């Protein structure tokens, strides 16, 4: 073989590889493995449904199988203080599950919390993925639209006593598409106003009467802002916290859900409620000066609240452990203040369990999910996450007054974010717009108008 022939051979190999790569994108030529899973699974589900009456569960208890679970916590390795209880609960779930299915092995794969959705999506495109994944319920649409999750059918749901659920509407609001549910919450997270009772007393404020309205929030904030201490902390440098903790609740509080996203998914924040919220936030930073401009660079305002830099903080219920540890009996909590004539809004969301389309045994995966929803596990999970239990009956077992307050708050003011095809873009665009307003780069009216136009252009 001459050198020329040899190089011709190498070139041919490269051309063949290229041809494969290009042909993989030809429509209607999905990977064989994917097709196999897609076609095979409904049959599996139907077959096992038929056998349901034979066993206590839907699957033969003697089945030998392995279930892959992708989570944001690590039940198998060294754990952080905060995540430890969640991981311990997962181990209890496995223990209970293995009592029913002794030959099923559960493999946990740990994925950082803000990447888990991405990993499920990427793996799903290759026909891969776990059986069960813990997913952000507000981002279910991204996985449902390309068909990466199995529905949690009415048949599956019939295994549960939904009458006992605290607020199943939140799950439906986020995870139900075309009448089919695709994920089920483990516990509900809410947002509220945290405050430091000691700082209130020092400022001559009644620690048992936290601010209820925006006007009161500003009054209290001014009284609490002195020296190096600011009245209020909000996380204005990280989009997930900024939008869920204060920006979107304040837009909805001045009107309704459609003042954030309209029913068709387009922007609703360019109305009066949105403008009012943007103006209020601008004033907090620039006129009333009760929030530090540093907050624009913060990726977690909790650190500043627990360090005593601020006297109040709008943040998630999931901050219960660091806050109560730092403040102890001086921990105060109240619903998020609202505009006069409006109402408090607490955007509720959760870690939801979903079944990936890559699962070879969705019935068995559902059996595992059910273990997380039992009356025994629900209160443990809620306490571990610092969240509201999903079952009303579990509330009886909760003794922590803060968690009980969360539960009441989520029941009264809990709202899901209206589903939109461009949830992530909506977060980025509104987050960027509010930062422009805070920094004085745009006036609030112009910012809401421009950001809504930018968002609506995505639908064209």
């Amino acid at each position, binding site marked *: 073989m001459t050198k020329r022939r040899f190089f011709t051979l190498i070139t041919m190999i490269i051309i063949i590889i290229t041809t494969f790569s290009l042909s993989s*994108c030809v429509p209607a030529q999905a990977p064989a493995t994917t097709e196999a899973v897609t076609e095979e699974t409904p049959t599996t589900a139907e077959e096992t449904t038929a056998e349901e009456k034979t066993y206590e569960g839907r699957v033969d208890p003697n089945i030998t199988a392995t279930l892959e679970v992708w989570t944001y916590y690590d039940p198998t390795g060294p754990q952080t203080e905060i995540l430890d209880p969640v991981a311990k609960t997962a181990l209890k779930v496995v223990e209970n599950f293995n009592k029913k299915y002794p030959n099923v092995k559960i493999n946990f794969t740990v994925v950082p919390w803000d990447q888990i959705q991405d990993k499920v999506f990427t793996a799903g495109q290759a026909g891969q993925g776990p059986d069960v994944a813990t997913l952000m319920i507000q981002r279910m649409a991204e996985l449902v639209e390309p068909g990466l999750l199995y529905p949690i059918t009415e048949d599956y749901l019939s295994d549960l006593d939904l009458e006992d659920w605290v607020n199943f509407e939140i799950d439906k609001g986020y995870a139900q598409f075309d009448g089919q549910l695709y994920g089920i919450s483990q516990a509900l997270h809410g947002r509220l106003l945290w405050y430091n009772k000691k700082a209130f007393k020092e400022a001559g404020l009644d620690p048992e009467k936290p601010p209820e309205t925006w006007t009161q929030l500003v009054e209290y904030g001014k009284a609490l802002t002195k020296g190096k201490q600011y009245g209020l902390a909000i996380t204005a440098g990280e989009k997930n916290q900024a939008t869920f903790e204060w920006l979107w609740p304040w837009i909805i509080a001045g009107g309704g859900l459609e003042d954030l996203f309209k029913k068709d998914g387009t922007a609703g924040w360019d109305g009066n409620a949105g403008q009012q919220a943007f103006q209020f936030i601008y004033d907090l930073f620039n006129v009333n000066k009760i929030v530090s401009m540093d907050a624009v660079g913060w990726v977690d305002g909790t650190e500043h609240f627990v360090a005593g830099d601020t006297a109040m903080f709008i943040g998630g219920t999931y901050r219960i452990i660091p806050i109560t540890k730092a403040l102890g009996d001086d921990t105060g909590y109240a619903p998020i203040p609202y505009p006069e004539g409006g109402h408090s809004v607490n955007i509720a969301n959760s870690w939801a369990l979903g079944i990936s389309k890559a699962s070879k045994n969705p019935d068995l995966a559902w059996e595992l999910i059910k273990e997380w929803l039992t009356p025994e596990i629900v209160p443990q999970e809620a306490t571990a996450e610092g969240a509201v239990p999903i079952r009303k009956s579990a509330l009886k077992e909760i003794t922590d007054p803060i968690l009980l307050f969360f539960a009441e708050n989520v029941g009264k003011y809990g709202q899901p974010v209206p589903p939109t095809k461009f949830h992530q873009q909506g977060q980025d665009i509104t*987050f960027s717009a509010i930062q422009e307003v805070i920094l004085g780069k745009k006036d609030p009216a112009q910012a809401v108008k421009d950001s809504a136009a930018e968002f609506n252009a995505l639908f064209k």
Partner: protein
Amino acid sequence: MKRFFEKNFYILLTIPATVMIAFISIYPAFYSFALSLNKLTNAVGKFEYVGLKNYVRLFRNPDFLSSGIVSLKYISISLVGTIFLGLILALLLNKKVKFKGTFMSIFLIPWIISEVVSGNMFRWLFDGSFSIINEMLSEAGLPALKLLNNPDGALAIVNTATIWRNLGFAMIIFIAALQTIDPNVIEAAKVDGAGGWQQFRFITFPLIRYHFMVVLILLTLFFINQVTTVFVITRGGPVDSTLVPGMFLYRLAFNYFDLGQASAFSVFLFVVNIIVISFYIRLLMRPQ
């Protein structure tokens, strides 16, 4: 057959590497190009051919332009800073200095530290409330530095962190290059009356220009693909003021799951890389 193997032995040795590169580099590159011409449909792994629509959407995306402007600032400042300081350090350490090895190790440490660690270090160094720098300024009765909460300040910190981290890499390559220069050549130039700048301009730089080009190309590629440092310090903000290409790509692909547009952007970046590198090669490889 034996003759064939003897004749082509060295070529045969390259086959495993060639095949590996084909699978891990060439295949994904072509796949990405193909993806940029397709759109995901509502079925796992299925795509729909859309021609150049993803490119049109990309060029109309307002973040594309703002990211482009940010990238030009970020890459040019980081490149100039890293290369200039790296070269100066290399020239200084190339002389007979005490504790030369210690100094080299100190400047190399940032290069071996994880980007997440160094990013967090800079975030805390410049935090408006907690930072040690602001604590010292406060003790001295000076106003606090509030850089992370304004767009220009945030970009300056990201640039500083990038330069700090990559300085050691540039320095070590330049030192290696400087050590290849025959001292007699420099001595001869001195005898001919060449000053320090003339020695550098006419002797040193022409002799290290291949190394200079390698540093320039590698750093350009590093900076174009930068994600970690920016993600840890600013997450692309505030007001998208640090939305470097890597962050924009990450946002398109993994926040919006818009694989078509993300692939179009990566193809665009690939073309930009080729143009920039060709320009470097033409500029630095031309005959003296």
